[in-house]
């Protein structure tokens, strides 16, 4: 039933058996989920929990499932809260065959903000079985008591995931991560930058109005902290203030702070520099050979996200099976090929598209990972403070 775990072939770089999947990634390039809500999610979750108070808590408690009937015997609709198009046509194919009674449905976690998505979970106890979430949000959900503790014994494939990732996302199964660096057009600028410092000090002024930035608070704040040589997860007020000043200094030179299509302007040439995720630049490079990825020497901020099981799910045994199936190398490779994202499972490399495996920005490279600092859950006060700073940056 469940695919037998392959031996961990660490750092192995195999040719992909499925090179044709490249086509699949065309036009379906994804960006990270907004569920990885840096600051936002935390207070939002708690706030809503408070708003709904006892009513929903009772409902949650009442629906706590007895579990551990055989997963194969279960039937029903298993709902994953995620983005439309996040999963390709192949990932669930095997699973569907083996579980004829189960229908997998994806529900849209809208993107108006993290609070809205958490509201969806909070107000509909039992309606969703799995949610896609980043480190801070999953930690917050855990604190709020809406997550089902991961039953690792039921998910043998979890061991295939690199231990760094597993430790960073303890409440769910890690599926993908993304680093924030920048891309530039080598045909449109003469410089060949390699650092954040160059971007902030010389390029910003020279190419003022031709620089775009993705709109994601924790990634951008982390980026500024990296530029200044601080930790992404610093709690120092003075460092955070320095970060804020750096961002405010950059803002007048920005063409736009984008919600979507981060690299489109770069591809078109209406912008020459884009502060963007690794996988998005990788995808953009396919459309324009002049785009160069910069993994700045000062380091990069990165998010990590994955699946968490939600309390109140009536299909928990099936959920564990689905998670296990998702991490089975072939399946996992299919998911990575669909999203074009950086991957967390080394053993799936042989099935993953060459363009991802060989891409310097995406490949599974422990050296490169050392320059990356993952965003952590910093507690509500810190999150609220950073949230205000972000708001101030946008409103300025």
């Amino acid at each position, binding site marked *: 039933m469940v695919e037998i775990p392959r031996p961990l072939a660490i750092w192995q770089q195999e040719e992909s058996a499925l090179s044709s999947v490249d086509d699949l990634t065309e036009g*379906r390039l994804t*960006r990270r989920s907004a569920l990885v809500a840096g600051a936002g999610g935390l207070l939002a979750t708690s706030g809503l929990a408070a708003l709904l108070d006892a009513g929903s808590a009772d409902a949650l408690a009442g629906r706590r499932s007895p579990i551990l009937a055989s997963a194969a015997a279960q039937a029903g609709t298993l709902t994953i809260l995620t983005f439309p198009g996040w999963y390709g046509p192949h990932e669930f194919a095997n699973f569907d065959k083996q579980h004829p009674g189960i229908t997998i449905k994806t529900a849209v976690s809208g993107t108006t903000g993290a609070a*809205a998505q958490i*509201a*969806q979970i909070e107000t509909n106890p039992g309606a969703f079985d799995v949610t896609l979430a980043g480190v801070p949000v999953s930690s917050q959900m855990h604190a709020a008591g809406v997550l089902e503790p991961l039953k690792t014994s039921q998910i043998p494939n979890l061991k295939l995931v690199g231990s760094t990732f597993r430790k960073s996302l303890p409440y769910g199964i890690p599926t993908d991560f993304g680093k924030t660096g920048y891309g530039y057009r080598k045909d449109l600028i003469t410089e060949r930058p390699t650092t954040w410092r160059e971007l902030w000090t010389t390029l910003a002024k020279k190419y003022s109005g031709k620089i775009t930035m993705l709109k994601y608070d924790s990634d951008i704040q982390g980026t500024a902290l990296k530029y200044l040589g601080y930790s992404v997860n610093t709690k120092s007020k003075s460092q955070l203030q320095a970060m804020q000043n750096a961002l405010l200094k950059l803002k007048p030179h920005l063409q736009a702070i984008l919600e979507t299509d981060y690299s489109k302007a770069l591809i078109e040439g209406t912008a020459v520099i884009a502060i963007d995720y690794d996988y998005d630049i990788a995808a953009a490079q396919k*459309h324009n050979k002049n785009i160069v990825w910069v993994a700045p020497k000062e380091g990069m901020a990165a998010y990590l996200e994955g699946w968490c099981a939600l309390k109140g799910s009536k299909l928990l045994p099936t959920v564990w099976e689905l998670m296990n199936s998702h991490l089975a190398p072939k399946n996992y490779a299919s998911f990575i090929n669909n999203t074009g994202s950086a991957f967390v499972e080394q053993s799936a490399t042989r099935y993953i598209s060459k363009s991802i495996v060989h891409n310097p920005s995406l490949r599974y490279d422990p050296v490169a990972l050392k320059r990356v600092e993952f965003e952590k859950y910093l507690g509500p006060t810190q999150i609220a403070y950073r949230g205000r700073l972000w708001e101030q940056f946008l409103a300025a």
Partner: protein
Amino acid sequence: MRLRPPRLRSIFTSFVMVFLYAPIVTVIVYSVNKDPLLIHWEGFTTRWYKQAFNDPTVRQDVVTTLKVAALSTAISLTIAVTAALWARRASHRWRRAFDGLTYSRIVLPEVVFALGLLVLLGKLHVPFGVGAIVLGHVVFNSAYATVIIQARLATLNETLEEAAADLGASRWRAFRRVTMPLLLPAVIVAGLLIVSFSFDDVIVSQFLGGNNAQPVSVLILGMIHLHVTPEVNAIGSGLMLITLLTFSTAGLITVLWPTGAGQFLGLGGRAAE
């Protein structure tokens, strides 16, 4: 008699129409563009429409959207017509208070009452879904409809209804045969408008949809977080087409219906006054 040489006004109106349609044209063009990144024109394809049509989520969400729009429009118009009929004969002070309520439903940022409603319905254990979305949509849709219908009703001569009552028509019949036909233009205008609001709404739809009702607007918002894909444009164009077809069918039925003949097109209704 004319205000200005007619051509100037018509030319200006045509320009405004171009302004209104230009973005829609780009949406339609993008929906048939082969280039998935929509950077260049790479040729015509119906692939995105097929893709959208074959996607069960899209199909289901379109149905949800139409259901929500139909229900909330029907309820909103009923509320608006009754409210306007009441307001016409209400005392001045009551009417002002009433108008205050109507306008505040339009004024208040949607996110505010949507959140309040979320909390309230949660506490009352009202199930989330199409019904809950409709509850929310009616709040603002009925307000817009009331404003439009009230404006129309203010211009109608009450003596017509009195005459009808005097001729022995029951109140209901006087309403149906005299007031309603006169109000119809405003009701239609209001209907056209609030259907579009229902389509556009994201916040109430997302908050109150639960896990079994997701209108297209919410789906699209999720989809564009990846990229503004041609498929999204195809869904937008498709939705417009479906609505247009629905309305023209409804219009056709009304026109062909023996008793209501011509009323549907009688939007202006100047002669009716």
